[in-house]
């Protein structure tokens, strides 16, 4: 809303410069986008919030200024000369058939006008406000809209058929060509202004007039419509029609029904002044929506309860009076100024539909009095603060992953459905958007994998080759039509595990890196169980399913090498490893394991290591070796580890060589050579017997 400084002077006697006014407005609730000094004086660009349609006119802004500076506001009382012979009631009839859409409709008629260009002062005012000049009568209706904030519409009286106006609901599918030349299809929520007793539509009420009855340079007689339409109906209609106008903005936010007749009179006054003619006596005023003004009580107690600091009676009353609330002290201590028991009965002004409760009056007083008059203080906390339940688990996990070289990422969950499907389990229902911005962002990710792979893709496409990322985020799915958001940890890596440097040779990131890193975080939750198998997006030879806690527990995730089929879709030309874990289970186990963790005394006697080098068939696992040794039940065996593994030279085809390192240690005594030889002998024969493994000289 462009506010011309000179125009404001018609309503308040201003002596301060525009800059200061703009600043004071900004600190009392009218947001100011800027000030321009143009050909017609300073123009303040005010951004009016949607609850204050009364400020969408010079009068409203002037009222704000009158409250801020405690200056009197000049009354608006147009008194156009009326015909002594002809009456408006003889020239037009009005009927409102849809009072729930149209609460008031006034009509005046001016005969014998001369349509011509507007005088310079009017053109300048409109230009300052950013409105183009058309002709005197149309300009006048725009002028009154800007001045009083109330929309009007002018018809060429002679183009209206039979002068019987009806305001009714549009019929479904009914059409009307509006002023802008566009034929619009209507629906029954839309108020329609019609002539010929409702037969022909001549305007969309509160939004835009029809093209057939518009003012032209040949117009002789003018009908001034100034009405009031229901804000919700207008907002619904503008959305339906996708049509926003100056009128619909004001009616849509709530115009002042009492202003309708005044604005019409002001319009007639200006027409007589600038276009001549004769105003028919009286006004047609159909006003089914008239309501008594609401009374609102404001107490000092409530003001203090909300604001925490006081405003003196003098200021409080001056502010409310200037804004039109007409405060009257009604408490029993009326004689006592600034009494803590003070109460005021106020009257809601017709232009302030937004202010109908005590809290609204509290805000009115506070904002105009100045928010910096309320001293800041830090309130005392009366309850202990708590972190999120998973805060500690997540923090530990995050720190560990970062220590292992992974960058935390945050991704936008909107992805292409086709990509999402690469990772989506077949039984998971996708959460699809009804109104996406594009197909590439058409669904919410069903797994974190799809956006993590996307982040790897971005980096590879931008010249980065060695990438380790993780995200702690959510996956979004529908279960029986209900949304389910699950917290997941997604990990991804590709490129070198170690780069060629001054001191080390390069090594590519491989499955064992992923497994080791995941086990490092799994240790926080008691350790992962890795089992064969996994989802289709992983390479069947290099993947695993992860479980926590006891054998047979539900899987909590999967990890491995991205399947070629999926990697090809991303055009990955190097191995990419991915894992996803359900954080709910990981966090839950974190706390369980942490709370059950107990100190174990360190052994006092030295441990002894023995290596066993065995040939195993390809496909035989280390787990089988470990199990065979542990099955012997030797309590002094404290660890069974794989120390080395190789194939090739000196190893028969179809077999591989595994170096198994067993640690013996007793809590009671230092082990003797004889004991260790006995354990070793039992291990050798067990491996030979249960696995058919042949032993090499270790």
């Amino acid at each position, binding site marked *: 809303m462009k506010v011309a400084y000179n125009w404001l002077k018609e309503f308040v006697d201003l002596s301060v410069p525009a800059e200061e006014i703009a600043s004071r407005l*900004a*600190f*009392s*609730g009218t947001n100011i986008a800027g000030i321009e000094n143009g050909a017609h004086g300073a123009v303040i660009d005010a951004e009016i*919030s*949607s*609850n204050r349609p009364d400020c969408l006119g010079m009068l409203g802004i002037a009222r704000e200024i009158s409250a801020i500076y405690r200056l009197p506001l000049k009354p608006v009382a147009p008194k156009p000369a009326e015909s002594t012979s002809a009456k408006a009631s003889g020239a037009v009839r009005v009927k409102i058939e849809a009072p729930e859409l149209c609460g008031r409709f006034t009509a005046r008629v001016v005969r014998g006008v001369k349509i011509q260009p507007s005088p310079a002062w009017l053109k300048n005012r409109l230009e300052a406000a950013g409105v183009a000049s058309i002709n005197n009568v149309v300009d006048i209706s725009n002028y009154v809209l800007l001045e009083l904030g109330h929309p009007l519409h002018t018809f060429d009286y002679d183009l209206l058929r039979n002068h019987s106006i009806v305001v009714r609901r549009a019929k479904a599918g009914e059409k009307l060509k509006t002023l802008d030349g566009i034929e619009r299809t209507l629906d029954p929520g839309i108020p329609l202004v019609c002539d010929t007793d409702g037969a022909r539509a001549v305007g969309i009420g509160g939004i835009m007039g029809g093209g057939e009855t518009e003012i032209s340079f040949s117009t002789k007689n003018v009908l001034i419509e100034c009405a009031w339409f229901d804000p919700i109906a207008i*907002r619904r209609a503008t959305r339906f029609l996708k049509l926003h106008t100056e009128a619909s903005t004001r009616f849509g*936010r709530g115009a002042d029904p009492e202003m309708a007749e005044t604005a019409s009179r002001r319009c007639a006054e200006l027409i007589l002044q600038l276009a001549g003619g004769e105003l028919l006596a009286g006004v047609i005023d159909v006003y089914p929506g008239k309501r008594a003004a609401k009374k609102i009580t404001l107490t000092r107690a409530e003001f*203090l*309860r909300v*604001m*925490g*600091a006081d405003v003196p009676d003098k200021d409080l009353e001056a502010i409310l009076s200037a804004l039109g609330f007409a405060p009257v002290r009604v408490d029993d201590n009326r004689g006592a100024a600034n009494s803590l028991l003070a109460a005021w009965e106020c009257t809601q002004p017709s232009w302030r539909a937004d202010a109908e*409760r005590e*809290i609204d009056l*509290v*805000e009115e007083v*506070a*904002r105009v009095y100045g*928010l910096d008059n309320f001293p*800041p*203080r*830090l*309130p005392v906390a009366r*309850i202990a*603060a*708590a*972190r*999120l339940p998973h805060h500690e688990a997540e923090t530990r996990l*995050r720190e560990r992953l*970062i*220590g*292992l070289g*992974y*960058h*935390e*990422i*945050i*991704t*936008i*969950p909107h992805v292409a459905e086709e990509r999402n499907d690469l990772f989506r389990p077949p039984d998971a229902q996708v*959460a699809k*958007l*009804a*109104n996406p*911005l594009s197909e590439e962002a058409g669904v*919410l990710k069903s797994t974190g994998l799809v956006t993590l792979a996307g982040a790897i893709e971005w*980096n590879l496409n*931008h010249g*980065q080759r060695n990438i*380790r*990322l*993780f995200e702690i985020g*959510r996956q*979004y799915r*529908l279960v029986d*039509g209900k949304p389910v958001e699950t917290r997941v940890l997604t990990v991804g890596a590709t490129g070198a595990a170690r780069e060629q*440097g001054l*001191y080390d040779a390069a090594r590519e990131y491989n499955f064992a890196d992923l497994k080791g890193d995941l086990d490092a975080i799994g240790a926080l939750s008691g350790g992962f169980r890795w089992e064969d198998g996994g989802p289709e997006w992983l390479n069947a030879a290099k993947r695993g399913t992860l479980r926590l806690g006891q054998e047979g527990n539900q899987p909590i995730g999967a990890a491995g090498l991205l399947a070629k089929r999926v990697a090809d879709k991303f055009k990955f030309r190097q191995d990419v490893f991915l894992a996803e874990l359900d954080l709910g289970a990981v966090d839950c186990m974190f706390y369980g394991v942490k709370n059950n963790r107990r100190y174990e005394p360190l052994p006092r006697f030295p441990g002894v290591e023995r290596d066993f080098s065995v040939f195993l068939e390809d496909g035989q696992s280390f787990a089988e070796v470990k199990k065979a040794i542990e099955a012997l039940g030797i309590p002094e065996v404290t660890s069974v580890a794989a120390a080395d593994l190789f194939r090739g030279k000196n190893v028969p085809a179809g077999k591989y060589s595994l170096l198994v390192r067993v640690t013996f240690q007793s809590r009671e005594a230092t082990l003797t050579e004889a004991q260790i030889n006995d354990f070793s002998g039992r291990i050798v024969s067990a491996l030979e017997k249960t696995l058919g493994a042949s032993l090499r000289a270790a």
Partner: protein
Amino acid sequence: MPTVDNPAGKTLAELGAASPDEVAQLFSEVRALFDNQAAKQLDPATWEALKQVWTGRKSGVLTLITDNWLKPATPELKRAVGQELNKLKAQVESTLEARKRDVESLAEHAASAKDRADLSLPGVLRPVGTHHLIRQVFQEIEDIFFSIGFSVVEGPEIETPYYNFEALNIPEFHPVRDDMDTFYLELPKGAPGPLLLRTHTSPVQIRTMEKRQPPVRVIVPGKVYRRDNPDATHSFMFHQIEGLAVDSDITFCDFTGTIDYFVKQFFGESVKTRFRPSYFPFTEPSVEFDVSCVFCGGSGTAKSGGTCGKCKGSRWIELFGAGMVDPAVYGFVNYDPKKVSGFAFGIGIDRLAMLKYGIDDIQAFFQNDVRFLRQFP
């Protein structure tokens, strides 16, 4: 090699020392001898030899003095010899230790250029990851509010219109809905009610108040969504921290004091704050909150002399909206609006991070280019 031309090989009697003064005289000769030898230029080998000569267990000077002077000394002299010997021992040991440091340091300095570390070369660089910058800012803000009694809670991102709008006093066709262009979910036939992506973290206010009775003091970090076309300052997903405090005695002054405290913790004590009246359907009175521009120190002038680009010369930067909880909201959660009061705020995290770190493209946060991530370790 120091020579052992000293009196320790003989007994006191052989040396003709019969009084404490004569003993002291002997010891001072021995000390002079040691000082003389220890003062010479030493390398690790000569230092070792010196140590052997004086402290060697079998025939070091100290051992010889013990054997030849102390043990056979007459009872009258024994005390004097013992005292002098202890003094000598202490001096020899501390001098040897000090000389050892000199000798080692000299040897290290003398190391050949080949053995010396080149400090301009990098060390062994183990890859270390980074916290995402948004996460860092979240954490910092959480910690500040946690320190003044705010608990952290979360809520769903897929919401119902009730929690995202209605219960926040934004009925259908409310003009504010036009400013929050909303993503809706496509639902299977027969699914109950529409679902949307929350446009702010405010629905969690309602969810929290439904579950807890006052006093309530929470902050809500999370993702929010608005259907804006992406550009340098818009992302259709971004992050907010919602704050809510409701109690029997919370006032506007408590609200501004809390915000003031937060901002000074986050931006520094010298930052100035101001509140401008504004409008939100779920708060009343509502405010917009500004801080003095942290880039130009609130002067409006950049260091280079021109207009500050960050505040465009206005000296202030608009940070976020907030206000006292509108009593209408309490109606939705069965709080008595006559008995409780409170405040709420919603801070845009991405914008805050961009301001603080001078980032000019919001998309950088979500591209996750490792070169970007590494800039904020």
